[in-house]
């Protein structure tokens, strides 16, 4: 059970996700157990009924994702949690949520893959799956915490962004952040910013469920509130009715992108650590960013002007921020627990203006401070 806010507690990352979800107003959870995310389901089962919320363990992850969408449409803020294999199973319905614009949050505590891999070993191999896991062009928001406190904050933020933009938001954790324990102080509820979805301001007869406001986001009526309308994953017009009209299809898909890409200032966030005068920089996220920060500190102590750029919003990718970094540093080291999924994005944003070097680990072991430090020392001659 949760302790009082404002008091320091030893807490696990997965536990912080539950606290964040409840603080953000999540009142529905559907899931299927899988290491290393299971604690989230277990805690939700205990906590949700205490606040009048609903928990259900579904028959699989496909069903969990479907139930979450149904509950959201019925008016509850909804979240599910899983790991690699389960994340794969959720993909079709994540696309449905993107298309039908149903707010929901998917927590993926990444583990070693592909397949069953090593259930308890950390990895960051789902970066591209988070971006492109469901079929078709679609925008996505994914956030990546690197501490227990941040797991709380970003869960709140994920819920808020989902409700605000009517999108599925992915909280891309890793086994280390999910399972590690840290001393944290959680904010009192009144200090947690909570966003509610936009409700229609017109009577039912005038309601077009998919007619966007200026911000590209249509107000959302919940099922049962007196606005009867149709929801489908087929291409649909502003009434929600299916159509194959090429103009409608194109405009719909472009609007789904605009509602995210027109609001990057609101959605993107990065952490900049010692970057002001940096000549070499690390780009790292999640658990790896913890080692990267220490490597930067040690590099500084050794007289190397190093800094860290940590994408907190990993999708959309903070392209401008990386491009801007590339103009000021000679070397960008990308450290990640995969074979280079985000490095490709970094290289694209750097565009040859600085050298890019990757440190990639796929053994289930962590990337060490020493490895990052060694990479920072090797500034190429001509960079």
């Amino acid at each position, binding site marked *: 059970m949760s302790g009082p806010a404002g008091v320091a507690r030893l807490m696990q990352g997965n536990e912080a996700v539950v606290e964040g979800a409840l603080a953000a107003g999540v009142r529905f959870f559907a899931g299927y157990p899988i290491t290393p995310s299971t604690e989230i389901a277990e805690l939700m089962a205990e906590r949700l009924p205490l606040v009048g919320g609903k928990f259900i363990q579904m028959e699989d992850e496909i069903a969990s994702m479907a139930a979450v969408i*149904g509950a959201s449409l*019925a008016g509850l803020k909804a979240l599910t949690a899983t790991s690699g294999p389960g994340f794969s199973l959720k993909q079709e319905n994540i696309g449905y949520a993107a298309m039908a614009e149903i707010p929901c949050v998917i927590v993926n505590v990444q583990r070693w893959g592909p397949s069953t891999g090593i259930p308890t070993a950390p990895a960051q191999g789902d970066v591209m799956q988070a971006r492109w896991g469901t079929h078709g062009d679609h925008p996505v928001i994914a956030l990546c915490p690197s501490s227990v406190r941040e797991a709380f904050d970003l869960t709140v933020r994920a819920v808020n962004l989902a409700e605000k933009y009517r999108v599925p938001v992915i909280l891309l954790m890793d086994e280390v952040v999910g399972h590690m324990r840290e001393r944290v102080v959680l904010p009192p509820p009144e200090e947690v910013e909570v966003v509610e979805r936009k409700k229609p301001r017109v009577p039912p007869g005038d309601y077009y469920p998919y007619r966007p406001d200026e911000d590209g986001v249509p107000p959302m009526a919940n099922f049962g509130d007196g606005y009867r309308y149709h929801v489908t994953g087929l291409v649909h017009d502003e009434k929600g009715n299916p159509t194959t009209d090429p103009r409608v299809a194109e405009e719909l898909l472009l609007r789904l992108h605009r509602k995210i890409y027109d609001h990057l200032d609101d959605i993107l966030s990065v952490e900049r650590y010692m970057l002001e005068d940096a000549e070499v920089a690390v780009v790292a996220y999640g658990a790896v960013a913890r080692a990267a920060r220490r490597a930067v500190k040690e590099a500084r102590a050794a007289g190397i002007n190093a800094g860290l750029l940590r994408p907190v919003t990993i999708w959309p990718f903070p392209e401008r921020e990386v491009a801007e970094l590339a103009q000021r540093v000679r070397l960008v080291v990308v450290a990640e627990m995969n074979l280079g999924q985000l490095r490709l994005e970094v290289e694209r944003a750097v565009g040859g203006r600085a050298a890019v070097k990757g440190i990639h680990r796929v053994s289930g072991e962590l990337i060490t401070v020493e490895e990052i430090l060694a990479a920072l020392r090797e500034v190429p001659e001509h960079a």
Partner: protein
Amino acid sequence: MLNQVVSSLRQERLPHIWCPGCGNGIVLSALVKAIHELGCDPDKTVVVSGIGCSSRAAGYLDFNTLHTTHGRALAFATGIKLARPELTVFVLMGDGDATAIGGNHFIHAARRNIDLTAVIFNNSIYGMTGGQYSPLTPVQKRTTTAPYGHLERAFDIAELARGAGATYVARATTYHAGLLKNLIVAGARNKGFSVIEAITACPTAYGRRNKLGNGLQMLLWQRDHAVTVKQAAKMSPEELRDKIVIGELYRAEAPEFTATYEELVARLAQKEK
């Protein structure tokens, strides 16, 4: 009666996509008549469907309608019902949608005895994709993926539902549309998971390939092969072999899932005080 049906249709959506002679419209009309007879508030009525010709029915109805992904309608509906138990939720599925890709959700919805009324349009085939075999295609029938005749055995939807824990199970055909309506009414009144199997004709993707004639002839086939539960009780398994038993097949009492959950919430709230 016809006016009732028309009043619950989204006029701007017509004409519908179904072929001439397709039975889906008969099931749709029985559903709407049942909803009227039940006196459901349209604002509090939800119709969820999967993917297939039959699942398009949801979109024509002036309720809260949700056309989901193939096979997953019951899982979406479970989320809706659990989140908001005061809503009346109908779930429309094809035989493939409900028992092939959605088979797992089907048995678990039944096991939970969650208060949903499932109407399964059983046309023995995958209509939407042009006539491949489904788990309800009878042995030896021809489909595009069984060009030499179907080799697998078929499910009995009613037995499957009953075995998995559904508390109301019934079957009718589109020839017996009045009975179908009555069974949907009774199913919706059951506080729990109800399954109504509607035997319906797909002349385009099933009838033609199996030389069963047009929509009308397939309806008459239903008339000639249906026997009531009462008649069936006096018949031997041999006599029943090519017959369709129609009527209320099974009924049971069991705790309903969302009500049980609400009780838990109330019990915990009591403890807090």
